[in-house]
């Protein structure tokens, strides 16, 4: 049993100058064989291992990670958490995650700083208004706490937004989900890692998967830089690198991996107390607890694994930010970075079995995977343990690309007429 984290343990350890803290997780060498191997030590992968151990009574589990845990999209995103999705399947999935977020710090005994400061989505043209109202009505009937706001209410909730009718694309309204918010991204990976480690999961870092061994239509194990690991169940949660792993198993996926960029400003005292997203002018902003404005930019339109995107994307995003928040003109960009996001044609994820027995994929989260971390891990664990999906992820199967039953979350924000 690990030592519990609390103010008392901090005080106690202060007397010994913090020399006696134990490791948050071990750093074992891989065993020869596991019941399940999770490929990918990001938030989703670690959460999957955690729930496999916790809810499905599996003990012999490994997470293999080619770099260091939480080093991919988990540590590179803008940490927005919300569940106000349009379609029933999506709303079910993301709200499941949101409910777990609400008790996650206590469950993991690790403060993931889940901050329910609300997420606003803004409407800038008449079709936006229709789309957001449609979504809000659907949310309400699905029991999700989203409300529609008019321009004055938007202004009241976030006074620094420029709601003047004279700007190029005035704010016509918006939606607000109050239970939504942000969390501390690194802490999510570390918290799950610590929790999984405590239940005996082996977290193996710096271990790159080089091949997947198959016997006809079933998996037998993985080749890694730390040798062969035997297993009958492989859960792949490799985000941007999903296709790379799939190719090893001879599968093709409906994915493209594209650069997604984000940036932060220098830290300042609190100036924005919520998260504001605007699809039409493409600007997402919140403020971290440290005081940095956290700004999400868009994806480039080409495949890349270089973790770099083009400057035009960053410039376009800041352009939109200044349109909505002219007061930020003299703020300064401190850091920008890129991640690799794997995007499905319908912008919805895949949590699914495959045509190969014992091979499961959890991928295609695109730009929105962080918010789903706990729910995704829970449902993927269920799918792996039972060899069949939970009802909440049944719609997110691979077959939908064959049958045509897509979960199209783009909607068509197309502007016609």
């Amino acid at each position, binding site marked *: 049993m690990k030592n519990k984290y609390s103010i008392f343990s901090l005080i106690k350890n202060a007397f010994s100058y913090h020399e006696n803290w134990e490791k948050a997780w071990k750093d074992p060498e891989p065993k020869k064989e596991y019941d399940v191997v999770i490929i990918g030590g990001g938030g989703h992968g670690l959460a999957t291992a955690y729930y496999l151990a916790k809810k499905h009574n599996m003990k012999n589990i490994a997470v293999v990670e080619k770099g260091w845990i*939480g080093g991919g999209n988990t540590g590179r995103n803008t940490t927005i958490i919300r569940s106000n999705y349009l379609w029933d399947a999506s709303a079910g999935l993301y709200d499941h995650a949101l409910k777990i977020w609400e008790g996650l710090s206590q469950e993991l005994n690790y403060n993931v700083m889940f901050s329910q400061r609300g997420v606003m989505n803004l409407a800038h043209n008449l079709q936006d208004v229709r789309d957001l109202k449609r979504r809000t009505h659907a949310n309400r009937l699905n029991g999700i706490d989203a409300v529609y706001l008019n321009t004055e209410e938007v202004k009241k909730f976030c006074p620094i937004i420029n709601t003047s009718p004279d700007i190029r694309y005035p704010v016509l309204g918006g939606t607000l989900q109050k239970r939504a918010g942000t969390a501390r991204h690194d802490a999510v990976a570390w918290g799950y890692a610590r929790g999984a480690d405590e239940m005996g999961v082996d977290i193996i870092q710096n271990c790159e998967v080089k091949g997947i061994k198959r016997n006809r239509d079933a998996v037998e194990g993985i080749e890694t830089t730390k040798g062969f690991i035997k297993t009958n169940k492989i859960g792949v949660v490799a985000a941007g690198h999903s296709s790379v792993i799939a190719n090893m198993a001879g599968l093709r996926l409906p994915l493209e991996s594209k650069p997604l960029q984000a940036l932060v400003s220098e830290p300042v005292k609190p100036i924005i107390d919520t998260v504001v997203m605007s699809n039409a002018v493409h600007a997402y902003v919140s403020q971290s607890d440290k005081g940095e404005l956290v700004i999400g930019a868009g994806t480039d339109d080409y495949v890349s694994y270089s973790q770099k995107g083009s400057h035009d994307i960053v410039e376009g995003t800041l352009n939109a930010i200044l349109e909505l928040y002219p007061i930020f003109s*003299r703020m300064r960009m401190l850091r920008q970075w890129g991640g690799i996001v794997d995007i499905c044609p319908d912008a919805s994820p895949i949590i699914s079995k495959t045509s190969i027995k014992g091979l499961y994929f959890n991928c295609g989260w695109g730009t929105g995977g962080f918010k789903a971390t706990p729910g995704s891990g829970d449902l993927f664990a269920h799918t792996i343990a039972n060899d069949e999906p939970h009802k909440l992820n049944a719609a997110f199967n691979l077959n939908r690309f064959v049958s*045509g039953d897509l979960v199209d979350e783009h909607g068509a924000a197309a502007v016609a007429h």
Partner: protein
Amino acid sequence: MTKNLRVKSSKLVDETYRISFKFNGTTYYGFKGDTLASALLANNIHLVGRSFKYHRPRGIMTAGSEEPNAIVQLHNGTSRTEPNVRATEIEIYEGLVATSQNCWPSVKFDIGGINNFLSPLLPAGFYYKTFMWPASFWEKYEYFIRKSAGLGKSPDVPDPDIYEHKYIHCDVLVIGAGISGLIAAKTAAKNGFKTLLVEEKSYLGGSTIYQDSEFFKINNQNSASWLEKEINEVKKIENLEIKTRTSVAAFHGYNFLLARENLTDHLPLEQRENKTRQRLLKIRAKKVITATGSIERPLIFDNNDRPGILLSSAIKKYADLFGVACGEKNILFTNNDSVYETAISLIQKGIKVQAIIDNREEIDSKLIKETEKNNIKIYKGYTIVDTFGYKRINSVSIMKLSKDGQKVIGSKENISCDSLGISGGWTPAVHLFTQSGGKLKFRDDDQVFIPNTYPSNQISIGSCNGDFTLDEILINTPKLLKEFLNIKKTEYENIEIYSAFNKSKRNIWLLPSNKIVGKTKSFVDFQNDATAKDIKLALREGFRSIEHVKRYTTTGMGTDQGKLGNMHALGIISETASSKMGELGTTTFRPPYTPLTFGTIVGRNVGKYFDIIRKTPIHEWHVENKAEFENVGQWKRAWYYPQNGENMHEAVQRESKAARDSAGILDASTLGKIDIQGTDASEFLNRVYTNAWSKLEIGKCRYGLMLNEDGMVYDDGVTTRLDENHYIMTTTTGGAATVLGKLEDYLQTEWPELDVYLTSVTDHYATISVCGPNSKKIIQKVIPEIDLSDKDFPHMSFKNSKIGKVKCRVMRISFTGEQSYEINIQANYAKSVWENCMEAGKEFNITPYGTETMHLLRAEKGFIIAGQDTDATMTPIDLQMDWIVSKKKFDFIGKRSLYRSDTIREDRKQLVGLITDNPEEILEEGAQIVADMNKTPIEMLGHVTSSYFSPNLKKSIALGVVKGGKNMMGQKLIIPMEKKQINVTVTDPVFLDKENKRLNA
């Protein structure tokens, strides 16, 4: 009374030009050329700010952009306020007002300082372990955490300044105008390369320009004098552009770099009006030469952060360049020869050097001998173990180091001082190099990372390449340049160099102390208060990768991005984990090199230039006639024309009624128009539309639906056959560009064998649509020569015609369900034609209507709007438009997808009409549709896509999509709103004139 610490006339400041400025409410004076830091130091002010976490007093530590501590808010409370400005970078100007940040009530007495005493409870990552109980309290904890974090304050009013962009394409870009950069720029330019030299400071010459002693000579002159002559020559070279106050922020792939040129930040506020503040240079260089120099390392020991502790090189620079003494009793602490240069400089200026503590045991160089000659006590083989003084250092404790440097021995000795200069050697500034994708190698001799492999056409020269001494620079730089620029020789082949610098160094990342590490505060990241013990704690807790340690301890995450301490963090990790430095890797340096103002990045694309505004040729008329406008893509479209204080609803009701009762007129110029020519034009249309085109007669029009390859409706419009091999296609306003792009794609890549040419004529033709029972009479008056008889010119046909000598096209097509004509006329005549229509229609009360009325009218007729009634999940079958899907055609885009197992399902959402029980009740567009409110969870069958009050039918009408709606005619459904439920009946989507009598009338 503050002391004046000016020593003598200096290189940079103009002592005849006095400038007053305010710091924390008090007025001080400095000279032209001073930075805020040098001016404060000259006024004997060291305490400038408070640190992020412990709120410890902090002073000026450096003299450049690497400064972690001395950051201030400028012009607090004004529109030009700016947080987190480095005092070491900003040049003073008359009227500058600066205040300390992150402290309350004042920098001298800061309540937050209590954190320093609580620090035992605030180790790295403490917040992950606490604030979890009770769960509901996180919000309250977070409120206080947020309040105490952050540094300066965001502006709260818009920025009055203007920013600009400039693209620069050059042969050679040289970054940094120190000695090596100047040599490179001169060499490149003189060899015919179009060269750009950028320098972040206001002056050229780097640190050599004040290296003015007999210990450093080039061709028998002091290096500074030699360089001054070089600079004079360089300034005269024709194809060399020099930009000072310009710092490179980002080095992207393909030699694309971003630099910020600072134009007005050094000017008094009143001189900045209407001037461009900063310019973002977007540089594409064929070759890049990085000469960004190096940054002096601090030394890591207990309490190494007090005001009055500076980098030794900064003390030298303040003395030599600005003529400012940082203290009257200086101590220098080093592991290399650099501080002796500082010492000699100080002695020359009469500034007292109290002692030098050198952690090396056996040292003997010309510089040291010279220092010793001046009776300065050198403690060889010693280290500092502690410092004292709260708001300013007042003394240090030193102890002897053991032979292996692992611990301290003997007894403590105290030495008083008012300034401490530290030097831990030099770190090459490889940030830009690594941003570009360059890979580093570790040089064990002096423990530095230097460039190894270059990803693009670039080199690094000078000290950023690990050449730290004058002789290394002058020997290696010309060699590197010859190879890189592919030239035979340089001017620097037979140069005589004399350098007294000895390269010996004793690198100890964390200096030993007489206390255990847990009891010390040895700062590694000064701004974020990350200490050596934090790093050790992270390692103890299993965070092993450098990125983990960085994130857990926040080392290197400050506004200085760890320019001073990142190397030490790595060093401490490698020592603690017994791994090799070279194998640990470094953390990723992310752009920008120094923080970049949002305004600069955005440039002039703000306000009215935020996004393009597209206007139709009739736009001015709409403005003159008080139209309200709707944004449709980048277009401004007339939305409705309120009269006599009408609201939108009233205006739209009036417009809609007039269009059906007599005549309406609409500007439809925004519709996309594509001219299609070629012998395979008909075949091409067969492939891109769902219906058949080959048999369309010349002079006839046909409506078409376009699908994506996934079978979903994507665009629609009417296409007219103008001639055997000539069509004109119309698209939706928003879809125009993508449709053309998609069609070109298929033509060029899938069907190159087709003889078809596409040319956009969207802007060439304005489209004026006149509809209503009197439309024919009006068109006849406007175009007298055209025969409009129904027999000769029925619905869905087209004619060429003329107005005067101006040719035009007339189509009889209708999006309203009324008899309707569209005049397509060359744009520059459109306003005139429109006015003619208005004049001709006066007697019929012709009524201009906007997009809102257009939407209403077409909804009465049950016509869809792609993008409003469809949402990328609707097939033509779902829209109940089976009639438009050709069964005979072999193939068309999207056909195959219509027959997948889930797209042929009967229970898909289908387009239907909805009629409210209460005819006055207008449904909300976007509202969900339900059959059974008692079912849990409530099953949503679909949603309302379009909804209006129809003045012509005198009732509310709506379109919606409903699961299995096709078979639900007459069925009752429910629209559940927040506070009520609305009952509706499913109907046919065509509400008006099912028989098309009005169309053909």
